[in-house]
């Protein structure tokens, strides 16, 4: 084998699912010792392609060559035999088992009739040191951090002799610190002669670590470029197919009077601890109020109290002067509050319902969708098709189940439904979580468009960039209270970070 032979070569891979072509004659080459990034939006077909390489799907057309030899990979064991290892986005580990037990699972070494964990543990220790993973072979999975669990997944592939490692969105679950460490590990792996395919939609990481980038859009390869010759804006443009600005375009806000007024709000969580301690808040018409804060300071309870999903102990929530504390979700929705929920799978959608049914999830009981107790499916379908078109939700049809859509398109569908209710107040909780740049831009533009129409928007996000870019006013939440308010053009990450950690800083005006 000479160095010019790719370790993995895909030739014209095509994979069709009912209603969509997930991969359309994709060709791809991975060379030894390289980190090759696979970039694409949610639903572009990256994961399908890698599942084909790992033997979970069969391609309808095309062929795969490993080290120049044509192969048929019809199950993951075959892939493992060929030296391919996959680090999944959602880890596949047995929580109460130790690291060693997890790694040897399925190929347990035996000494006589007994399990020989000792030799295995020694081998794991050795691998761990060789690649700088620093994993304790005897630690139990539920005792170690998410970052460590990911390293166990990496070790698992190495232990099985993988030379080609596929990382599927590896940084989605990691903290910034852990991301830096993962980058180090990946560099070490290629230095030791491994080859890596990195699936991601995060441009920063690609620029940081990869040698080559292949961009996929709607199932087709758009381009393959050397990372050194690319820039984030070029990549983003290729990925979404149009110019992407990272700065959100918006005019200055022209806020009107208070629409939503929250006074002395006290709310307990399910364990009975008080998590909102007399919170005060105003949102005016025509402005976006961003709530910045570290996760767990009462954001979830604030949203649940505002939308009627949890009980208010005391205090008032007024929408245009009307008291809504402890009203039912339906009363609140009908009064003019729309809600893009934090967890779209838990609250936003019924995954086994069709897109049509999901589009009328809150309005099904009204005319024209429901007449004398019977549903009018024609009216429902018409509404769904209108929203799907207006918000560019990519779905094979209005009858497709919500489950089979990509995360970005599911989120678009929810936003379409909520905005279409024409609310006075739009509550957006983590509206861009897990979305790619194109979808993030879309969501943020929609929020600003709502503001420009004179709606009051309440944005809750853990992404400081998003809060600073999108909001007209920022309120910082800490231990169940608003501890300060700043204007986005007069603040920065450091100041907000300090306020979020609980210190009141000059420049931050204490609310009330």
């Amino acid at each position, binding site marked *: 084998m000479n160095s010019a032979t790719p370790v993995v070569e895909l030739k014209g891979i095509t994979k069709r699912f009912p209603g969509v072509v997930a991969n359309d004659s994709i060709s791809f080459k991975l060379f030894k010792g390289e980190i090759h990034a696979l970039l694409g939006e949610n639903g572009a077909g990256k994961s399908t392609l890698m599942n084909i390489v790992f033997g979970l799907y069969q391609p309808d057309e095309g062929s795969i060559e490993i080290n120049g030899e044509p192969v048929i990979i019809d199950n993951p064991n075959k892939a493992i035999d060929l030296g391919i290892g996959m680090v999944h986005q959602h880890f596949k580990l047995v929580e109460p088992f130790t690291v060693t037990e997890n790694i040897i699972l399925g190929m347990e070494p035996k000494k006589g009739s007994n399990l020989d964990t000792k030799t295995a543990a020694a081998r794991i220790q050795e691998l761990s040191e060789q690649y700088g993973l620093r994993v304790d072979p005897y630690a139990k999975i539920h005792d170690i951090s998410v970052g460590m669990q990911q390293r166990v997944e990496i070790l698992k592939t190495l232990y099985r002799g993988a030379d080609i490692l596929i990382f599927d969105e590896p940084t989605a679950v990691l903290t910034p610190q852990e991301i830096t460490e993962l980058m180090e590990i990946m560099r070490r792996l290629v230095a030791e002669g491994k080859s890596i395919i990195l699936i991601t939609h995060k441009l920063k990481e690609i620029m940081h670590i990869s040698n080559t980038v292949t961009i996929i859009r709607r199932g087709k390869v758009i381009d393959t470029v050397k990372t050194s010759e690319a820039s984030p804006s070029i990549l983003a443009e290729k990925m979404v197919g149009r110019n992407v600005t990272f700065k959100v375009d918006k005019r200055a806000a022209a806020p009107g009077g208070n629409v939503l007024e929250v006074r002395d709000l006290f709310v307990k969580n399910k364990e009975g601890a008080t998590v909102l301690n007399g919170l005060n808040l105003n949102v005016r018409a025509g402005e976006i109020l961003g709530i910045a804060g570290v996760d767990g300071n009462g954001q979830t309870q604030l949203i649940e109290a505002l939308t009627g999903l949890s009980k208010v102990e005391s205090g008032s929530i007024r929408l245009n002067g009307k008291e809504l504390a402890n009203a039912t979700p339906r009363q609140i929705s009908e009064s003019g509050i729309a*809600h893009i929920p934090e967890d779209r799978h838990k609250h936003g959608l019924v995954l086994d319902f069709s897109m049509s049914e999901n589009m009328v999830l809150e309005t099904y*009981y009204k005319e024209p969708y429901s007449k004398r107790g019977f*549903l009018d499916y024609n009216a429902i379908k018409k509404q769904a098709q209108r929203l799907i078109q207006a918000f560019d939700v990519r779905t094979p049809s209005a009858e497709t189940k919500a489950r089979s859509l990509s995360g970005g398109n599911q989120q678009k569908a929810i936003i379409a439904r909520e905005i279409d209710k024409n609310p006075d107040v739009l509550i957006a909780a983590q509206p861009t979580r897990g979305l790619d740049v194109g979808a993030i831009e879309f969501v943020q533009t929609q929020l600003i468009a709502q503001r420009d129409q004179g709606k009051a928007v309440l944005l809750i996000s853990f992404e400081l960039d998003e809060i600073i870019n999108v909001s007209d006013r920022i309120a910082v939440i800490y231990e169940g209270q608003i501890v300060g308010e700043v204007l986005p053009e007069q603040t920065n990450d450091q100041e907000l970070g300090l306020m979020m950690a609980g210190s009141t800083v000059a420049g931050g005006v204490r609310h009330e």
Partner: protein
Amino acid sequence: MSKILKLFSGSGAISIIAIVLGLIVGAVVMLIGGYEPLLAYKSLFSQVFGNTYDFGETLREITPLILTGFAFAFAARAGLFNIGGEGQFIVGMTAASVIGIKVHGLPIYIHAPLAVIAGGLFGGIWAALVGYLKAKRGVNEVITSIMLNWIALYLANFIVRHFLLMEGKQRSEDILPTASVSFPWLSDLMDSARIHWGMLIAVLCSVFFYYFMWKTKQGFELRAVGNNPNAAQYAGMNVGRNVVKAMFISGIFAGLAGAFQILGVFHYQSIMSGSPGTGFDGIAVGLIGMNNPFGILLGALLFGTLTYGSAGMSFGAGVPPELIRIVIGSIIFFIAAQGIVRGIIKPFYFKRKKEKVL
């Protein structure tokens, strides 16, 4: 109509293959036991279709299975495991007996419907109790409905023994003729097989089930609650109320099944030493029919045919009738373990798909 077929076609293939596999397993067991499976199945079917009396009696066997199958499936669609069809069935029987025996002086067109409605209503209330406990107190419906099965059994026996007893017998008095839902004209045609109006109503219930669940606002809510209670709550639906409602309607089906057994078949109620089992069989029927109302009609048809025909198997081929329970058990196994069935049909399925693409 094409929509109805579509609703069913995906899972239909799996059911049919599971049935065939179940029959094969039964045949293998017969071979091991030294019986002749072909002769056995032949005598099973000739028992059912051999003469009009037996055919009518097979219909009689099928009817309560349809209704208890609906009782299980309706709750399942709303995300509830109603294992209490048995108790709801017994309560329905008892309510119908009380009205049928104790209420005098009503004309037939009032008395019989009243007894039927009482059976359905009390079955519904019995189940709604389970729903209420789940909605208000968070008690698991499996536990409460199993306990209510026993309470129903002994309550029914108590009522029969103290209020309805025929002197010196282990059974109630006969219901008044005005409470009977028998269909004498058709019964005479079928050599006095016990044909009753409940058969027609059971079939009509499938239409109700389908329309209610998939065409009405309330059905939409029930399905949303069943699939994702969090999203249902977010969308402004009252989850607790829907749980109670689903159980109530589910119980009505089981209660009706019980009422028709009394008013159309036996015309009296015995003191039971154990549960009659019809409610439990409904769970099996619901599983075979994949919780689809039309699937359940076919599932009950199969279950009833096999059960009634098993007597013929024992006459014709000497096979113990209990063996048919192995067949039914295997069918449910193959339906539950869908992976096996999918594995078997996969090659055929793929071939068909490919042709379509080209």
